[in-house]
């Protein structure tokens, strides 16, 4: 845990970026920058965060920042980490540089998973942050492997036969943990202290670390942009998005939600689930989602008990 006044006052993520009002990514970027321990390079995958913070000739980043392509943030980070080490071996580089890769859920759960898996297996010392807003928001809200069941997106539209995305969200942390890495965690920007602590932990471990941080998207989730942080708090309070970590082989629940709100509260607050309430109340789908939330929560509790 960190104390607010201990956080860096320096703003390495400048204001004046062009992210949407209420976008979680701006808040998460700023918090991430507060958790740095020293010289750092950011690698960004193609996505909202890249297109809205580095429109040439402007940049919001006051530290070295690189965007190469969509599916390869982890691979680019691998090259950077090893290059500093190699140059240090021939005396051409001195200081240690931390490397953080940032990608959306499309760039992580889907198109970037191979590069991520390779980098985790090779064990490069870097932190990978997935800004998980649960769909391809940059291209106009298409479903990804992270989009929740029942969500209405432009490629999993709520139709008269199919009520939104039929599939369930992928278990990213499980996939990452299966690589035997030292650290993986989920986080929500509604709990800044938890997130900042985790970023710092992820930087400090000597190998790769992954954080999947839930990032509210007022445009894609369709909620009031003033209520973004409320949404990702509700996601935690309903047990929809459990906050836990995997550290040196052990799972730990970071936020115990002893009296969960029904997931319906999270669903009805967002337009992407509106079709589950109107014109017909789809109790069947909502119940199914609630059941999945309960099963997942129990699964995580079990992991944490071991």
């Amino acid at each position, binding site marked *: 845990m960190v104390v607010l006044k201990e956080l860096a006052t320096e703003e390495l993520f400048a204001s004046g970026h062009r992210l949407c009002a209420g976008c979680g990514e701006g808040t998460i970027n700023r918090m991430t920058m507060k958790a740095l321990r020293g010289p750092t390079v950011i690698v960004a995958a193609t996505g909202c965060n*890249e297109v809205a913070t580095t429109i040439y000739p402007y940049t919001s980043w006051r530290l070295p920042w690189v965007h*190469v392509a969509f599916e390869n943030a982890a691979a680019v980070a691998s090259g950077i980490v090893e290059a500093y080490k190699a140059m240090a071996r021939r005396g051409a580089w001195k200081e240690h540089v931390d490397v953080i890769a940032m990608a959306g859920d499309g760039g992580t759960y889907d198109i970037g998973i191979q590069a991520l898996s390779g980098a985790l297996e090779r064990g490069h010392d870097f932190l990978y942050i997935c800004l998980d807003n649960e769909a391809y928001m940059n291209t106009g809200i298409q479903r990804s492997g992270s989009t929740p069941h029942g969500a209405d997106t432009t490629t999993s539209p709520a139709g008269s036969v199919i009520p939104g995305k039929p599939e369930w969200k992928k278990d990213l942390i499980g996939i990452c943990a299966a690589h035997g890495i030292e650290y993986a965690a989920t986080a929500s920007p509604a709990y800044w202290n938890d997130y900042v602590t985790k970023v710092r932990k992820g930087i400090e471990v000597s190998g790769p670390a992954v954080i999947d941080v839930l990032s509210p998207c007022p445009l894609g989730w369709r909620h009031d942009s003033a209520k973004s942080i409320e949404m990702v708090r509700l996601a935690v309070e309903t047990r929809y998005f459990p906050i836990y970590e995997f550290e040196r082989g052990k799972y730990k629940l970071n936020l115990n939600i002893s009296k969960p709100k029904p997931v319906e509260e999270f669903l009805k607050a967002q337009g992407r689930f509106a079709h589950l309430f109107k014109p017909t109340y789809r109790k069947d789908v909502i119940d199914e989602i609630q059941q999945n939330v309960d099963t997942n929560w129990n699964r995580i509790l079990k992991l944490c008990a071991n």
Partner: protein
Amino acid sequence: MTVEGMTGDEAVAHAAKQSNVDIVAAYPITPQTIIVERFSKYVADGEVHTGYVCVESEHSALSACVGASLTGARVFTASSSQGLALMHEMLYIASGLRCPIVMGVANRALSAPINIHGDHSDMMGSRDSGWVQIYVENAQEAYDWTIQAFKIAEDKDVQLPVSVNLDGFIITHCMEGVDVLEDEAVNKFLQTRKPIFKLDPKNPITVGALCFTDYYYEFKRQQVEAMCHVQGVLEKVCKGYKGVSGRNYGVLETYGMEDAQAAVVCLGSTAGTAREVARKLRAKGKKVGVVKLWLYRPFPAEEITAALGHVKALAVLDRAISFGASYGALCSDVISALHTLKEKPHIFNAVYGLGGRDIQPSDIEFVFNEALETAKTGIVKEPTMFLGVRE
């Protein structure tokens, strides 16, 4: 200098080792694999300071190379065929971000059907990707050009990636005597890379920003400018390398062209066969010549015109098909280089050797005779012929 027996792949690996690369990120693919195997052994034996990033795909290979190159490191990779195709997206980004990466390309046919043998389909499919492209004739050239490639790529006026292309199996796997320089001589010739921009927390830069209609075009125009600098830099580098090695390189090499009536233009290992056939024909009084291009991108149009403008007929050998186009890629380039001449040679295209199909001296003799006939009659019988194929 010592002569060592090595294959083309081994020669490339040896050159990369002597070039003191900081990072190699690569993925195995036949017939390139020996390059990365040899390099892995240098790393395992502690002979180099290089970080070897053993990536999970060619796409990640070039991605890691781009990241490494942006830190200011000297970077090498190698690939072939399907691997190069998988890198396609990254080829454009490597050149667009002005990363002076050197890649050994063991030229191989593209699927389908799958085939592991040599032709130029792979790199020809990437000819517009903004990479400098060099084609070599044998293991010695593979060695020499790999070293020179770093010097060209990293020149302040170039800052572009360079591919050194060697014919799959014919060069990659064929054991030859290679005259190898002393490590110290290579060090002195190459020196360390001096990046213009790098990822340095003390002087932060943003790389790979989004450029819309207002700036994108200017970035591409600057790449054109960098390409324009390549030839001059290459000639300077070759001059310097001659001083070190005694071997003389440039944008192209000619044989018998002073008085040639008919000529063959080609890339890579076929040039050796073509020269030998030309030598025999010249001994019989037939005025034929050969032009071998070392530099294919940027295309040395002026030198091509100077070397070929005077001949009556010309056959361009293409070891790749450009489906749906009038000619193969090399032939199209030669034709466009010569199009401003008032009196142009009669030109025809001979496609050959796809999927590693052997090209025999008799095939080339046939082409020379066709060219001589065309020189005499002024009639191109067949604009594109397919050598050595069952019709």
